[in-house]
């Protein structure tokens, strides 16, 4: 039964990784770039929530509400200042600039908030501690279930946005062919900026849940980026529901690894990721031509 419990916990953990990977998948789907500062932006989101909590005695979920528009603006600003120029200079430059950005964000966070390891679990109150005992061995924590639920809602919402709205159709068109999209009146620059803004805001949501579930510190970003990227690649680059599946596979791999020996947790995830990379299809749901 402990193994069943490990799988259940892995699925719950997978929700967090899917949420982290979601923003990466959107940016890769639309612009074909991977933002190496994605994990640091998630951590930045967690710190911004913490700042709000310092000034107002509210639940962290309420504190996220003012943070989201700020993060949308951060994403928009990031696109028009750094990423847009990077995109024009070829495939290597976005990797280099976002890696540079990652170092800048980490050290500014360190400068501002000290290297202390923090958690927002206490502020979240009963949500962070409550759990539902299914059997003697299996329990589902409230926060774990909530994260998975939010991940499904965010992914479903994105899917609806992309398939049903005008802005979503423009985004898909731009993803397939920006030049042709411009010919029929789509402003590709605006679409890119919108995609980055959405991706960064979702990163902040993921950052909040990471902060409640576990801990965060200024240099927590790179590890989160790796997990997010692993979820996206295992799921097949660019597929939204694939990212959820990839996150769950990664989460289950980590909890099963941890069940064998806690030291093997992260390693097991890395090995599954490398095994998927080595497989001929290179992803569970990779379908050529499918966009976001």
């Amino acid at each position, binding site marked *: 039964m402990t193994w069943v419990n490990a799988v259940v916990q892995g699925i719950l953990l997978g929700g967090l990784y899917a949420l982290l990977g979601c923003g990466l998948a959107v940016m890769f789907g639309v612009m074909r770039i991977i933002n190496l500062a994605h994990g640091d932006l998630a951590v930045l989101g967690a710190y911004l929530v913490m700042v709000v909590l310092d000034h107002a005695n509210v639940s962290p979920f309420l504190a996220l509400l003012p943070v989201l528009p700020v993060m949308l603006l951060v994403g928009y600003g990031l696109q028009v200042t750094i990423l847009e120029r990077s995109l024009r200079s070829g495939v290597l430059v976005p990797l280099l600039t976002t890696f*540079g950005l990652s*170092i800048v964000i980490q050290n500014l966070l360190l400068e501002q908030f000290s290297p202390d390891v923090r958690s927002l679990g206490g502020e979240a109150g009963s949500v962070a501690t409550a759990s539902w005992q299914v059997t003697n061995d299996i329990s589902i924590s409230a926060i774990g279930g909530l994260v998975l639920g939010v991940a499904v809602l965010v992914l479903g919402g994105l899917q609806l946005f992309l398939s049903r709205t005008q802005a979503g159709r423009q985004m898909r068109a731009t993803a397939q062919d920006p030049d042709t999209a411009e010919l029929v009146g789509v402003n590709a620059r605006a679409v890119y900026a919108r995609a980055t803004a959405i991706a960064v805001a979702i990163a902040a949501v993921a950052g909040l849940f990471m902060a409640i579930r576990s801990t965060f510190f200024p240099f927590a970003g790179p590890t989160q980026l790796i997990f997010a990227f692993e979820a996206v690649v295992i799921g097949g680059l660019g597929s939204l529901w694939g990212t959820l599946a990839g996150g769950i596979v990664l989460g289950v791999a980590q909890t099963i690894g941890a069940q064998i020996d806690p030291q093997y947790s992260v390693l097991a995830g890395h090995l599954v990721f490398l095994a998927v990379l080595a497989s001929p299809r290179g992803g569970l749901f990779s379908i050529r031509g499918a966009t976001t």
Partner: protein
Amino acid sequence: MTQSSATVPAPRYGVERWGRLSISFTAFAVALAVAFAFVPVLFSLGTTQKATSLLILVLLAAMWNALAGYGGLVSVGQQAFIGLGAYATVWLCNHDWNPYRAMIVAALFCAGVSVPLSFLVLRFRGAQFAIGMWVVAEAAAILVSLDQSLGAGTGTSLIELNYYTPTQRQHYTYWLTLGITVFFLALLFLLLRSRLGSSLQAIRDDEDAAASVGVRVLRGKWILFVIAGAGCGAAGAMTLANTLFIEPTSIFGVDWTAYMIFMVLVGGLGTFEGPIIGAIVLFVIQNEFGDNGVWYLVGLGAAAIGFALLLPRGIWGTLEERFGLRVMPVGYRLRREGT
């Protein structure tokens, strides 16, 4: 009166590899390498140690540039080889090897590891390669920290070097580092001048176009990947010899990649001379501002962004373009004959 001839001879062009400037500069580079050999004799141990770390930076920058500048492979995980090189040295010394011989074998071991790894990671381009290598480095760090005989997560030191006096140790380490760095720079120089070098420079300029005219892109990348694996492994072993203590989180840390990206972008991506200049710039910055921790790293990151966007050819690439300089003759240039 001018005499008009019936046929104006068409201007003839010749291909030139060595110019006056490049001959004198190559000679200067060789002389410089020889002069560097006398640093331990002429300067204090502290200076020798700093010179060793400069040489390691030069080696790392040249290796990362070989990958990214010529192979189009941005790796965020070369620290995998740095760490493996250092820990392979520790392992060999635990098995009664002479430390200096162990360092060379460790570099060869890293070249050996890079061969099977290349089959996995070279299938990818761009971000997948970048982060794939990063995951490899993270996995290697975890595997090493699980091994108690290598000091596990708390780190280990190279006690075998205590058989030498501090002076001997620092001198030998310096000379070995100099020899290895010069070896890899010479190897890259010869490689870039060879027939393969032309194809590597074609891959650098446009991978797809190069493939379409028959360049064997994968083979070129494979050679660069193995050389960079060996070079970074050697750099890791030399770092261990220079600092005497390592721990998995720092020797496998992604900070190494930050330094390499900074050096290569500032110096000039895809040029032979650029990374050397970038390494000197980083060395000076580290010595001047390294104590200001946070802002120093913010500055490094911001400079990397700035150079990538505003001066993508770096200091050296920009100078080369503006003044038509070519001091290390790794390319070809057209010269009008008879002028």
